[in-house]
């Protein structure tokens, strides 16, 4: 048992390391695809790593009236996002976090990271920080319940709220095409776009005040603090891509007790799917325009409505809990 636990622990550690390692590359792929589609040369694929290294080397300039909350928030936000990202099964389903937290806890961990970020945005007392935090929380009041409804729908379908259990269910029945799951997929994609500050909800490459949400909150950060927050947002992108992959394209993922060989195959499959997902995101971003902030409730509200319809259908078809 203890040896088993040790292997589990190491595998879990490997996963934590993997998501961290691949995250800047995924962002690099999105940027590169976008640049090429706009007929620009674009930054190298590894630019994400370079950005982080540069930010770490620079000094951190902190506003005079910043509090301890402002200084400690980045590492906490990073840690919360990192653990949340490690909860989502990537290359194998039977890892240690399999039992420590479930889908409800996953949503809540991301919520905790977001609350801290919004608080940090208000700490210095600038108008931009307030804009960002206020809009972020408005979007969250639509996206977070939508996300919760999606994961509850999946939990009802799979008969468990453990993420690995849900993943196992989808590995075992990859063709379990149901209307409620289709609605969940659309809703989850919208939530993923909103949560990652992607077009059409937010534009990660601009500092134009009318469109700023995420960027406005972190405007006062620089140096190593900014590096941590950027890394956390990279991780969040990997998290949502992994979630979509593990739920709706789980082929190749190693089931519980697959052994090292299964894990290697799973790792390759997961990396390929992740980078493909990032490329798709790039295509999506160049083919749609940014929305006005006050049209966002309609867009993210669609996710909420779809999530609600999905769980309603799951209830009416009486899920696997009987």
């Amino acid at each position, binding site marked *: 048992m203890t040896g088993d636990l040790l292997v589990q622990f190491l595998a879990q550690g490997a996963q934590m390391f993997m998501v961290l390692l691949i995250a800047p590359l995924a962002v690099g792929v999105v940027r590169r695809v976008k640049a090429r589609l706009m007929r620009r040369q674009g930054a190298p694929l590894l630019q994400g790593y370079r950005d982080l290294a540069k930010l770490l080397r620079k000094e951190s300039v902190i506003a005079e009236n910043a509090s301890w909350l402002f200084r400690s928030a980045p*590492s906490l936000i990073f840690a919360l996002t*990192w653990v949340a990202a490690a909860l989502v099964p990537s290359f194998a389903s039977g890892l240690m976090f399999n039992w420590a937290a479930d889908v409800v806890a996953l949503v809540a961990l991301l919520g905790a990271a977001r*609350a801290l970020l919004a608080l940090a945005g208000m700490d210095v007392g600038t108008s931009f920080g*307030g804009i960002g935090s206020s809009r972020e929380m408005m979007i969250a009041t639509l996206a977070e319940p939508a996300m919760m409804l999606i994961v509850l729908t999946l939990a009802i379908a799979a008969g468990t*709220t453990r993420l690995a259990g849900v993943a196992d269910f989808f590995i075992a029945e990859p063709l379990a095409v149901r209307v409620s799951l289709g609605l969940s997929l659309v809703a989850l994609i919208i939530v993923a776009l909103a949560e990652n500050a992607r077009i059409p909800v937010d534009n990660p490459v601009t500092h134009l005040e009318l469109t700023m949400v995420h960027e406005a909150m972190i405007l006062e950060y620089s140096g190593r603090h900014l590096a941590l927050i950027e890394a956390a947002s990279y991780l969040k992108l990997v998290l949502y891509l992994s979630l979509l992959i593990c739920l709706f394209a789980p082929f190749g993922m190693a089931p519980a007790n697959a052994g090292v060989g299964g894990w290697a195959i799973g790792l390759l499959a997961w990396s390929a799917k992740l980078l493909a997902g990032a490329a798709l995101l790039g295509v999506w971003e160049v083919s749609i325009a940014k929305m006005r902030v006050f049209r966002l409730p309609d867009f993210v509200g669609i996710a909420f409505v779809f999530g609600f319809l999905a769980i*309603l259908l799951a209830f*009416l078809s*009486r899920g696997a809990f*009987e």
Partner: protein
Amino acid sequence: MGYQAAVPELYVSGAALGALAVAAAVATLVRGPALAFVYPLSALAAFALGAVDLHALLGGGEWVARLPIGLPGVGLHLRLDALSAFFGIVINGGVLAASVYGMGLDRAKELTPRVEPLFPLFAAAMNLVLIADDAYAFLFSWELMSLASWALVVARHTDPESRRAGYLYLIMAAIGTSALLFAFGGLAGPAGGYGFDTIRAHPPGPLVAALVLAAGLVGCGSKGGLIPLHAWLPLAHPAAPSHVSALMSGVMTKVAIYGFVRIAFDLLGPPAWWWALPPIVLGAVTAVLGLLYAVFDRDLKRVLAYSTIENVGVIFVALGLALAFRANGQEAAAAVAMAAALLHVLNHSWFKSLLFLGAGAVLHATGRRDLEGLGGLIHRMPRTAAFFLVGALAISALPPLNGFVSEWLLFQAVIAAPALPQAALHFASPAIGAMLALAAALAAACFVRVYGIAFLGRPRSVEAARAHEVPMAQQIAMGGLALLCIAGGLFGSVLAAMIAPVLRDLVDSVLPNSGSGPTAFSLIAFDPERSIYDAPVIAFFVAIASLTTLLVVHRLSARRTRLGPAWDCGFPDPSPATQYTASSFAQPLRRVYGAVVFAARETVVMPAPGDARPAQFSVVLVDYAWRVLYAAPSRAVLRLSERLNALQFLSIRRYLVLMFAALVILLSIAVVAI
């Protein structure tokens, strides 16, 4: 455990209650600094009562006493079972914290003979409600609790707002108590057995049970702030002194929930499935609306009071689900829902007391409760700010704090609802899940706003800039509660094991033993294969991840930090008025939710170019619940009483005719009835 073994515990309880009564009596006689004795004595009594309750809950004892006072022939029945003991722990924990906070009050300025005698009376009355074992004792102590708290609300009677709050509270408390009177009348039946043991032995028929449930929901719901019976709560709770607000919001609403649980799960006998619908629907509506009220309000204490309404709604949803599962014989799911309700009762009493004490500290330090005049308190009151942050994150149901534990259990209960056979519940449950998820997200937005505006940023008034940290006793009270919020979040499984006797009594089932999970502190719903939340493991990994990050960043980074002016896109403005305010923070939410729920209208008056007058911006929110359910009936009552006023000026012949007519009507009713 029998009557004999109980004697020492009963002595302790009696002595503690007696001490509270004596404290109340003596405090009416003395003035000035001498009043300071009230809080240490109350703290001691609350500690003793809480210890007895804890002993009763863990030891599984059930103690009864019958005193020859009260109604002739009935006497006074007292009983301490697992349910009473659990709620006793909740109440006395709150009283203890509020008393410790009270010890830090300014002896010269803040001790008044209008508050100190009533504080121990209020505490004793709440304890009496829990151990009452007959309808008379229950209603008597319930009224005592209402009146004591009413007197505390109008302690600052020179303020017209307080007077208005007190007036409304008195009316709503009267309506609530008369509803409870009907409920117990129905429970006692025509035979008139007012002892709870008699009622338990003869549960009422289905029709009477429905009426009793409705009356109980009105009686307890009005005390707890269930919408639409909530209107008094956001006025009355903030009007009282802050440590009393903490008691009213954190603790007295729990007595209301105790009343509902006692009636619906204990006295009414086996439930029918449709009993679940009213608490579920009302609770869910309350949860969402309560937060929408909170998120648009600008008064710190009123925001907290509205958030209390929300939490009471969440608890009622959990209770309703527990009723539905129990009625269908699904005990395991009923245990999950009931555990969610009870743990939320405990958790809410901790973080809401903490937040109200924090609001009291802010009020003490700045003299202001309007959010628009606060800001930057994290620099001037660092400890209060840290404790308040714990409370704000806990109430937003964020892991690894305690609010999330009950939230997690509640969502587990919601997704077990497809197994219920009734179609109505199939349609209701997804909507409930959606509303609970919405409420959780809104709570986060609400408390990010409160904390961000009051404690972060730059001070928006001179008072906020001159704020100072509060006395040590008050810091200890808040710090203790903050610790409980953290410990309760990490070791929710221990609390779940503690309430097992209550669950066994109410729903005949308990949560799975945490020993059957992977670690000793796993919280398990249904079975380990289905749902586990292991807070210590998650917290451990988050801590490890933070530490690793800090170490790595420390090694790799330049480690240089420079302080400078705020960047603010290159144009920092020194005026604190350029910050976001509480109103502007709520504006996006107002655009999304306010237009539908409150018919929010924004008007901007922009002067023509060259005109020197300032531009004006105003927002109008319509409170439909108030307009339809309170303002309209009160106008009708007023008009009716004006009409009836004419009855005072009749001649003697007309009075005689009226009396004769009344007699004839009554006699004909009697004839028809026979």
